[in-house]
């Protein structure tokens, strides 16, 4: 994902802003890392360049 995605994504649960922690970056692309809700603290993984913003119960259900 590109960093400017942060302008528009939010926590699926409470719609608050997300904070980005980068684990791995390639050129301008964030390959892995974590998006954390600034309100509820829920953490959403970024894997293979794609943030997984499913509500936590659906993420784990699979």
């Amino acid at each position, binding site marked *: 994902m*590109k960093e400017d995605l942060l302008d*528009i994504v*939010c926590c699926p649960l409470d719609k608050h802003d997300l904070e980005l922690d980068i684990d791995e970056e390639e050129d301008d692309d964030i390959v892995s890392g974590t998006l954390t809700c600034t309100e509820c603290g829920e953490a959403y993984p970024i894997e293979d360049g*794609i943030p997984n913003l499913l509500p936590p119960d659906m993420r784990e259900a*699979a």
Partner: protein
Amino acid sequence: MSVREEFDEWAASGRDKGMEERHWHTAKHVLARMPVEAGDTVLDLGTGSGYALRALRQRDVGRAYGLDGAPEMARNARSYTEDDRVGYVVGDFGSLPFATDSVDHVFSMEAFYYSADPLETLAEVRRVLRPGGTFYCAVNYYEENTYSHAWQDSISVEMTRWSREDYRRNFREAGLVVAEQDNVADREIEIPDAAAFPTEEFDTREEMVERYRRLGTLLTVGVAP
């Protein structure tokens, strides 16, 4: 089975590309009608292979995001483009991970009715759209298209089958103005000579003509006031 399990399997077996090819027949006409401007932000709900975003980027939209509940779908879609302004997100129709008033136009092809709660999804679409933004909602599975009714038998995710009127009423209930409703014909699918019928799907040639040339894809366009 969950959306994720069902559609991850589709993605893994290449059905994302098969859908793209079939859906493009009508989706391209739907996309052509969207009043996008250079620099706009667009969102594709249930993006599958992500073809809609690649098409919209050719019209110079600023940013194009695809959401899909199946991680394998999103992974495939991502691999089909190098475009910096296109991004993919795994998420669910029930709770969109996009900020209020953040999107100019939302597109969705053959995906909306998989939502576990379509009214909630409409409310979410309404929420993320900027005032004056549009929701182009295209479906082949709907009440008047009786040929689609059997699809539910072959898929584990529960599907919602609304009529044309249901779409209009529910859009309005969610606070969207209905600007247009149309049956967009598929004029490209090849329809064999009468001698080829009955087929597995159609008893007569007339039925197949009705299914594709007359019923086609149901498009409902909502506007956030």
